[in-house]
Every structure is written in structure tokens, then in C-alpha cells.
């Protein structure tokens, strides 16, 4: 069985929650959701997951708890959570923008707004998912800092951006100045493809590992249990 690109993305997202312990996984987007549930069913069985609204549910959908927005915001501040958000723009220090493109006073394109990105990034680990890696997303400087990056996080004691997953690879900030580094390439992707699609200089390790292969059990779970209709291929083309 050969894994598809979308399935490598699922694995790369799932890995964000490895060894996370008994915390809430908050995936946003389809592939992070499949990844979080895969982690819950395999190597991170203590994770808490929601139904996307106000209920905490186990993998079968059985309600085990209640988490309306007001309690969710307390859980964020308490730190027992790892969220994976989307990003309309992200820069080399992990600043993220989902608010607007262009000048904030009179935006060229109004997007969602800051939402919970400021509170997330100052209180619990925040990773990002980018389904289409391009220079429009990976920019030198974001137009509006919603999610706080490392160069804006001085003194923020609970700030951490563990990883960025895109359709091309996995990225982290494990460099002396916390600038973005290529951590692994999805099989079939070249370093040149990634640097070409990135609007700033990435740190490249001398040997770039490949995103790991899914196990046979993981592939079976993705294909037969978690996403039998194959919705993941609509988020990342094969």
C-alpha cells in the first residue's frame, strides 16, 4: 500500500500530538482533524477531542464531557491544550495572520479576524496547517500579527509553536534564533520545490529527513474508519 500525499499530511499532523498526554487536541481543518483522531486511536490515547461544538467525545462519538465556548476559553488559558490552526500568512518566526490582507485600516481582502489566535499563542502550544504551500502564505512579513511568533514573544512564558505542517513538508523553529527550519519532506517532494514555494529563507539541515511512513494499521484507520469517503484528497490533491 502506497500512502498518498494527503495521508502523509495526516501522519505529520497526528505527530503534533505525540506524547501530549491528557490535553485537548483542537484541530482546525479536515486533515488536522483526521490526524488528531488517528493520534487518539493509536499513540496518544489520553487526548480529549470535541465534536467541533460544545461536547467532548470519544472516538465512537460518545459524549464524555461538556465544553461550551466559555469553558473552552478557560481551558486555553489553563494551557492543557494543543491547537492546530490555519494560516492565511505565516512568516519565518511563526507569526500568523488570518485577519486581513493589506493595510489593516483599509484591507485589500478582509478575512476572518484575529479570532482566538492571540490567546492561543500566548497560552498553549499552537501549530499550523497549510494545505497549499506557496509564497502567498509563507511570506517575509505577515500583514497582521494574529498568532504571535517567536520574535514577538519575549517574556511570554507559555508561548510555543511546535510545528507547521504543509502539503510539502513539516517545519519547526528548532534553530538558535527560532527561525523556521525544514524538519521533514513528504516523500516525492524536493528541497527545491519547498524553497521555491517559500517567500523567505528557510533553515535547511544538512540532511533533510522524510516524513515517516504510516503503519499498515494507521493507513487502515485513515481509509476505513476516519475518512472512508476520502474527503482528505479535497484538501490536498494527490
Amino acid at each position, binding site marked *: 500500500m502506497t500512502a498518498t500525499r494527503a495521508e502523509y499530511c495526516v501522519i505529520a499532523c497526528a505527530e503534533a500530538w505525540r506524547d501530549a498526554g491528557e490535553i485537548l487536541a483542537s484541530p482546525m481543518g479536515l486533515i488536522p482533524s483526521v490526524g488528531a483522531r488517528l493520534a487518539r486511536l493509536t499513540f496518544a490515547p489520553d487526548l480529549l477531542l470535541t465534536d467541533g*461544538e460544545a461536547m467532548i467525545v470519544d472516538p465512537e462519538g460518545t459524549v464524555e464531557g461538556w465544553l461550551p465556548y466559555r469553558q473552552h*476559553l478557560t481551558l486555553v488559558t489553563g494551557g492543557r491544550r494543543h491547537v492546530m490552526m490555519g494560516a492565511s500568512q505565516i512568516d519565518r518566526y511563526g507569526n500568523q495572520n488570518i485577519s486581513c490582507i493589506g493595510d489593516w485600516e483599509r484591507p485589500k481582502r478582509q478575512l476572518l479576524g484575529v479570532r482566538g489566535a492571540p490567546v492561543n499563542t500566548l497560552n498553549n502550544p499552537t501549530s499550523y496547517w497549510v494545505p497549499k504551500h506557496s509564497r502567498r502564505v509563507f511570506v517575509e512579513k505577515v500583514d497582521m500579527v494574529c498568532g504571535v511568533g517567536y520574535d514577538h514573544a519575549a517574556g511570554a512564558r507559555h508561548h510555543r509553536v511546535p510545528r507547521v505542517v504543509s502539503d510539502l513538508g513539516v517545519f519547526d523553529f528548532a534553530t538558535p534564533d527560532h527561525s523556521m527550519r525544514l524538519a521533514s519532506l513528504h516523500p516525492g517532494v524536493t528541497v527545491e520545490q519547498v524553497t521555491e514555494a517559500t517567500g523567505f529563507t528557510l533553515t535547511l539541515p544538512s540532511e533533510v529527513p522524510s516524513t515517516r511512513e504510516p503503519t499498515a494499521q494507521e493507513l487502515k484507520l485513515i481509509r476505513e474508519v476516519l475518512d472512508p469517503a476520502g474527503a482528505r484528497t479535497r484538501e490536498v490533491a494527490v
Partner: protein
Amino acid sequence: MTADEAVSRLESGMTLGIGGWGSRRKPMELVRALLRTGITDLTVVSYGGPDVGMLAAAGRLRALVAPFVTLDSIPLEPHYRAARESGAFALTEIDEAMFMWGLHAAANRLPFLPVRAGLGSDVMRVNPGLRTVTSPYEDGETFVAVPALRLDAALVHVNRADRQGNGQYLGPDPYFDDLFCEAADAAYVSCERIVETAEFAKEGPPQSLLLKRNVVSGVVEAPGGAHFTSCAPDYGRDEDAQRAYATTPWPEFAAEYLAGRTT
């Protein structure tokens, strides 16, 4: 009272809180009634959805305080976007948690509450009036002092209410409707059905009794009053109607919608 009577108590220039969240349990019948009046120049405080989109499209906003505006199943609110991109009103853009603590501060008659959110982000750049506060204890941590979001009036929609203004939600999430009412000088509550007070116990458990009559100024019976947003468990979001709203030019949609006809 009727929806028209409720909004007749409002005035141009007011700061108005609108309950619900995104495209969920919004007091749309009250918004519709508001749009039928000439009231304008409003400062709206909202976890924004089509309430904000409609008021923006109709040119009634002077300012908006919000962490986002979305239709949920349609992530970007088209009428809000168009108004923002044409610079039609002033925006105070704050984080979701800052917004909640701003309502808490107002409800508790406090000038501010400290939050660990906003620092390092451009929320501080685009809101130059925001101040910080430093802990007087050993940790010495610096926080944003979120100012109270005090409201002249609040509009919310719940599942059941009695004539005295006690309100009950029956879905999975209360959102922040109690805080909106407590933060406001006057609150108008629409509900799917007015019930006798004694019926609350049959409808749901004690903790579903969200709104207390001492913070509610008027009750409006409005079956379907959140349509086309969701109002669980009475009904879900009407996705067809929402899509029609999002894709129809506002004047055309408004002609039907404000007359009370909905697709």
C-alpha cells in the same frame, strides 16, 4: 412586547451588544426589526455573524467591536467583507477571550480585567488605546487590561422565556448571552416560545435557566426568531437561506427579508 416595540426603545448612536456566536442563535427577528427602523450610527459589540453583515450592508454601523465575523459554514461573511474593504466603519478588533473578559468586566462593574492575550500581537498596534497592567505579586507578569465593554442595550435570542424575562437555553452552548444582558443598561430577549414560569422545569434542568428577569427589560415571542442561524434543539441552520443571503445583492435580499418573507 413585539420586536418592533423592543427596537423602538433603541436610538441612533447607541452601543449595542448582540448575542449568539457567528451564525448560531443570533436574534435575527430583532435585527430585522431594527433594520426596519431608521436607527443608525450604531456601535455594535458582537461575536459577529449575519447580524453584523446585515447592519454593515444597510450602512447602520459607525463602529464594530469584534474578534471575527463569520457565517460558520461560509467562513467569510461577504457583506461584512465588502463594508470593511470600502472602509465603511471603524473597527475595534480584539481576541475572542479579550472580548469575553470585556463583557465580564462590564457585568461586574469593573473598569478592566487582566488577560494574557493580545501582547505581542497586532491587536495592540490596531488598538493604540489598549493599556497593560503589571501583577503586584511576585510573578510580576504583564497583562493586557481589557476595558469593560459596557452596552447601552443588548439583543439576545433564547429557546424559552417567561413573561417576566427569565430565559432558558436548551441547546449545547449558552454562548455569552447572560453576559451581554448583564453588561447592558437594557436587554431585549426574543425566544422561540413564551412559557409559564412553571413550565421551565419540564423543558430543561435548572442550569439551562440562563437569563434572570432583573437584567431583562423586554421579552418578545418570536418563533423562528434566530432563522437562518441555528437555534438547537429547536432547529438547525437553514443553509439554503444562508447561501441565498450570501449570494444575493443586499437590496434585493433585504426587500424580501425585512418584509418577513424568508426563503
